[in-house]
């Protein structure tokens, strides 16, 4: 029974960049509606792990199954998975040559063949929700970093994905803009969408995560509910990591 609820299933995932092993025997199951936060020092492979889930990174060994589709080189499978898995990047990656509105409607119109009028309506709805509907006609570079990241979140929502991946969404932001993005993410978390977030925002993790995962040098070191994770860490390495990030 429980097996069927898993929307993401990662089995014995191993990945190398040339000689260097970035992911070591990763096993991870994510249930429908679950919110996972992945933490860890830089270079620990956490970004690489989430990027494997929508096949932005290829891997040499192991399997990843998303919504019962096993990832492989098959273009159709990749397409099917990408239609249901959205991704928010550290550097926003909005398309600078398109207006905010066009950024949002591009995929619905070209990939899902949604009629233009309907796509615009949906897009405006999501822009409304992230609080920047009034900027729809502007270009990305005219917006602040926080606004751009909210647009990027709205863009990823436009295809109504069941799974959302966040790759350090607040790391490139000025401090005063972090909270406006986190607020949007917290709101999303309450909607019971499956979320996998790589982030250094421990406050966010405490507030909404169902499970927190600690990675170091390509391995999952510890996996726990937020309460245990932050208050009673078991491994020495996590204790050290927590003391380093929480000490100031």
């Amino acid at each position, binding site marked *: 029974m429980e097996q069927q609820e898993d929307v993401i299933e990662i089995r014995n995932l191993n990945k190398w960049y040339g000689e260097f092993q970035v992911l070591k025997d990763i096993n991870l199951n994510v249930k429908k509606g679950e919110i996972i936060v992945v933490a860890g020092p830089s270079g620990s492979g956490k970004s690489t792990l989430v990027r494997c889930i929508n096949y932005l990174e290829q891997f040499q060994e192991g399997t990843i199954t998303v919504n019962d589709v096993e990832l492989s080189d098959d273009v159709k499978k990749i397409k099917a998975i*990408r239609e249901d898995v959205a991704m928010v990047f550290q550097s926003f990656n909005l398309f600078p040559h398109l207006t905010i509105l066009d950024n949002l409607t591009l995929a619905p119109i*070209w*990939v899902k063949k949604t009629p233009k009028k309907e796509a615009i309506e949906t897009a405006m709805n999501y822009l409304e929700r992230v609080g920047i509907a009034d900027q729809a006609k502007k270009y990305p570079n005219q917006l602040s970093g926080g606004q751009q990241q909210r647009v990027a979140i709205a863009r990823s929502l436009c295809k109504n994905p069941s799974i959302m991946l966040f790759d350090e969404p607040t790391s490139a932001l000025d401090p005063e803009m972090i909270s406006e993005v986190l607020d949007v993410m917290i709101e999303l978390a309450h909607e019971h969408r499956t979320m996998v977030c790589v982030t250094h925002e421990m406050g966010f993790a405490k507030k909404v995560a169902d499970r927190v995962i600690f990675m170091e040098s390509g391995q999952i070191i510890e996996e726990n509910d937020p309460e245990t994770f932050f208050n009673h860490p078991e491994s020495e390495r996590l204790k050290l990591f927590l003391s380093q990030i929480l000490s100031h």
Partner: protein
Amino acid sequence: MAVYNKIESRKAPSNSIGFFHWIRENLFSSPLNSALTILGIAILVLIIPPFIKWAIVDANFKGTTRAACTGDGACWVFVKMKLDMFLYGFYPEAEKWRVNLTYGLFFVVIASFRYLKGSMLKLSIAALYFIVAFFLIHGGFFGLTNIPTNKWGGLMLTIVISAVGIVCSFPIGIIFAFGRTSELPIIKSISVTYIEFIRGVPLITILFMSAVILPLFFPEGVNFNKLLRALIGITLFEAAYIAEIIRGGMQAIPKGQYEAADAIGLSYWQKMLLVILPQALKVAIPNLVGTFIALFQDTTLVLIIGLFDLLAMVQLTTSDSHWIGYETEGYVFVTIIFWVFCYAMSIYSKTLEKRFNTNLK
């Protein structure tokens, strides 16, 4: 500890803005700079007045024969009498309206682009224009008499060659740019081979090959039009350069753009045509226009395979026994025409850059 009041902005000091400030900053900022400014002015004084005297003050504009040209100035009578040759080559007098109509339609199309929306519509209009232009200039259909291409010449031939070269090499160049950045080894190596081969050969060689060597491979009796062969040669040559310029533009696009396009589910072609190419072209505009300007000037090389473009017309007209010895006037006139066209392209490139600039603040 202290708390400070808010300070309102003031106007900039008057000696840091304005005309005199600009002159002092840009022309006389240092002794060396001042010396160079004075030297520059001196050179201009030496060159410009004599040229104006020759080209305008002492020049002859009236009359119809070389007898009208007296004095030391330029003999513009020559250019006036041979103007039709310069502009249309041997195109029959009675049919020149067809060329003029094609020019006129061009400006109508360009003007219409300012008001029309939708790139598909614009593309179809442009394609339609080229078909209409072909029928008009070439003839042979709809009751228009056929004007064989050996009658084409002068500025009109220069424009035909460069327009066809630019328009046809552009899509081919894009395809090779995609090919060279492709992850498929076969497509990649074909593109690399093509680009590197063409770039290793001078245009003049390609023109010779198209005119002299190519016919050897055709079976007896098959006669390929000389202009068409030159056009194919120039197009294939130009495509290799355009491919490299566009590839350069594509490399300026951050990896995140490719990833974002992948992540929202676009296919390869959608990603390239909707996300990457528009940005790459924008980056490449100055270089692309630079190549197009070079192409416009390189068309003069068709002289060596017996086509008479604008520059070739100077030689042809001054070999007329009535007008021997007026090369200077001919070359000055042709220079001015080339400069006007190239400068217009340069200006147009600036407007394009501005129009596509979305890096607004």
